[in-house]
């Protein structure tokens, strides 16, 4: 039996397909203006790649527009992002107790128990600090690509200190450092460290267990990941999967659990 999950975020959308409890394919793309269309497109392209028809798959939706995808008859059911991230990470690695998910416009820290059940979570979607948008703004101010930002932590010698919490004020600081001729990698490393600090303050509100996983688009920024590991004094568990597809994977797992029987 085939089960699928879609997850639409603020910047990217993902689809995952499971067959007999194994991931057979996944896809990640930039969102379209409409979240429903984003979900249909990313899942449509994945089905086509795998030579499957939509009717072969029972789809669960998470992320933006998930209720509407059900109303539109595209997805069978919808599940919250928090549950999907917890489920996806635990399924990949049952020792995971904390999931830190940093997306384009929000950040979540989710605590789960030894059975993978949700214990507690904390979320920031009110302030751009500590989300992917913060990094995007600073990368733009530095005139570098978002993908280049992370690695600069590893070549910097004396990272600058970004004192502002606010993304907008931090951007002003970044521009001042540039004007003063501070090398880009030192500023970029400071940006990554500052981002890690914001996540740390969020995570502190629910606590982080040593068995933690970092997911979401920002997990691909190695600099932020390293800085966060240093502050939390742990090493993130390897999930062996693209960290951006965990939500969609969780949705597919829920579909399998509900409609797959035993």
């Amino acid at each position, binding site marked *: 039996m085939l089960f699928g999950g879609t997850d639409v975020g603020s910047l990217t959308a993902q689809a995952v397909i499971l067959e007999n409890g194994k991931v057979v394919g996944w896809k990640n793309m930039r969102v379209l203006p409409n979240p429903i269309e984003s979900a249909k497109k990313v899942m449509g392209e994945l089905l086509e790649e795998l030579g499957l028809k939509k009717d072969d798959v029972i789809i669960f939706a998470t992320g933006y527009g998930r209720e509407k995808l059900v109303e539109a008859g595209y997805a069978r059911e919808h599940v919250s992002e928090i549950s999907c991230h917890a489920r996806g990470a635990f399924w990949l690695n049952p020792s995971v107790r904390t999931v830190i998910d940093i997306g384009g416009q929000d950040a979540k820290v989710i605590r789960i128990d030894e059975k993978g059940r949700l214990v507690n979570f904390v979320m920031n979607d*009110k302030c751009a600090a500590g989300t992917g948008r913060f990094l995007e703004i600073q990368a733009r101010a530095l005139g570098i690509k978002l993908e280049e930002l992370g690695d600069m932590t590893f070549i910097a010698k004396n990272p600058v200190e970004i004192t502002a919490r606010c993304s*907008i*004020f931090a951007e002003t600081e970044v521009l001042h450092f540039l004007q003063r001729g501070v090398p880009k990698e030192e500023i970029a490393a400071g940006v990554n460290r500052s981002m890690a600090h914001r996540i740390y303050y969020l995570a502190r509100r629910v606590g982080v267990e040593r068995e933690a996983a970092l997911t979401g688009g920002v997990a691909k920024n190695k600099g932020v990941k390293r800085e966060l590991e240093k502050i939390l004094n742990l090493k993130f568990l390897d999930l062996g999967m693209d960290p951006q597809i965990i939500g969609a994977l969780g949705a597919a797992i829920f579909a399998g659990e509900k409609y797959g029987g035993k």
Partner: protein
Amino acid sequence: MFLGIDAGTRFTKAVLWNGEISRFAVKETVGNMKSVLESITKEIEDYKLCCATGSGAELVEFADAREDDVVCLAIAGRDVVNADYVIDIGAQSITAISVDEDGNVIDYVKNDKCASGSGKFLEVMSSALDIEIQDLDNLAFRSNKKLSITSQCAVFAESEVISYVNNGESRENIIAAVCDAVAKIAASQVNKLKITGRYTITGGVANFTSITERIKRAIGGDYVKFPNPQLAAAIGAGIVAGEL
């Protein structure tokens, strides 16, 4: 004659004070503070004492004294318009102050950690709409449809503005929604103080009637207009210099 200088993050203001404004100057705070101060004080030499305030007060080397901007705003609010409360919206902060009868600070709340509702917030939105910030009042006045911006975060609010632009909403209606958002943010900040008396609104953002009118509507009560509101802290510093 006493000189008050308010070295703000965005503008530096100087007021020559003798019980009223004798002369004043406003310059953008860009580049070297020394040259900003030189250009701003070029025409103002005949003063006895000088007091500096604002985030760059330390950089005003020739000042005889320095005073906190909250203190200066309270003094100016009481002295100039006899206000019990001062709401100041600057380039990077929103401050609400309750003032006693002698112009001393009783209590205050300040947000300078985040751009929410500040002058910077307005600049970000204006630039997303590709309008000059000076045109804000004219445009907002011509709005004919109610839109709303729900985010307090300047970054997320900018995304909302851009979505409205992409959906073909007019700049007039969008900027009116931005003014609503600023007023709402300012009012919620102010409400932490429980305003019961006469209040005034100062800071560069108070130059925009579209904003002050909306704040008045949100707060209600006894409002008094501050003449030349951008100069309030500099006036307060001038008064402090006179009392040295």
